């Protein structure tokens, strides 16, 4: 499924990919290899989207990666908010929303493609 992307969205995916790539490293270093591998996979999908042109071809599994990544960002947003890093929390939260926006768009386009 080809999904259109804006520059703003690609920037959000780039920031999110960086966060998850480092998070995967940290998880691996602290002994959570299974989780680290999963997060690394999500980061890889985000990186693919960030480096795409004005549209990206996504598979169902990649859409789920993006959804899962948005949930991880929501957790980071909450943590930053609790620690009073409000400005950064807002940026991370907005990025989470941008990720999810792509999921919703994928769902819509996919349904329409299957109907026609």
């Amino acid at each position: 499924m080809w999904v259109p992307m804006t520059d703003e969205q690609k920037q959000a995916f780039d920031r999110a990919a960086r966060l998850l790539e480092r998070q995967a490293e940290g998880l691996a270093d602290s002994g959570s290899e299974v989780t680290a591998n999963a997060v690394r996979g999500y980061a890889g999908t985000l990186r693919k989207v960030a480096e795409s042109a004005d549209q990206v071809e996504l598979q169902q599994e990649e859409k789920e990666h993006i959804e899962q990544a948005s949930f991880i960002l929501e957790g980071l947003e909450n943590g930053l908010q609790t620690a009073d890093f409000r400005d950064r929390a807002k940026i991370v939260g907005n990025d989470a929303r941008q990720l999810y926006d792509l999921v919703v768009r994928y769902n819509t386009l996919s349904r329409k493609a299957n109907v026609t």
Partner: protein
Amino acid sequence: MSSNVILAVGDIAGKPSENPGAVLTAKLASRLLDQHPEATVLMLGDAAYERGEAEEFKKFYKPTWGIQKIKARTWACPGNHEYRTNDGAPYYDYFGERAGPDRTGRYSLSLGGWHIVSLNSEEDHDHGSEQIDWLQENLATRPHPCILAFLHRQLFGSGGHGDDDDLKPFWDVLFQQRAEIVLCGHAHHYERFAPQRPDQTPDQQGIREFIVGTGGRDFHGQTKDTPNSQVRGFNSFGILKLTLHPAAYEWEFIPAEGSTFRDASTAPHPANHQ
């Protein structure tokens, strides 16, 4: 008299080790339907974990919330886990017409003199999207003035998933049309808000949001204090019972066996609908 009773909950069934509450809430739903046989059940999304597969509906949802007595009274809206399998196809297959007529997840009903509208938070809902245009038209031609909307995701929340501004276009239209109530799940807790506008300004003629993600999955803890939040319960499975009247509505969060948390009260309709 019970045709104006709604039983609402989302985030329900799955592998028992990860969804310990589904059996308990299904027993509670069954008991409440004994008391109110004509009640309507609103399923607020994420019926069958982890991926909304046909097999998960068969193994986990059907023996709990899918027993005929409950399923025959249920209307559903889709959640994000439903959309993890083939655009929600097993979900639409399972609920059939009880998920709406055209597999878009958006449809409306008349109940107890209220207009009940199901929305699909898992598909496009930007201003100018097909779904928002549909909602505007649907509400503009509704047969009853009072509106209750149900969808999976929350605009405001103090638990897991926090606030989700992405949902604001739904709220903009609902507020413009003076909707009273929005029901949602997604976050795994119970929360009741004071009536408010989409920009979070308290307003007695605004929308009251209930989060009822307490169907059995698990619990997300509190993550923040959200303005206008009035009551929160983070560790009780249970069901929200709403009783709709022409000039008021009552609510009661009824806990499943093993929990004691409750929340109950009555609210008048905003004056603009009388």
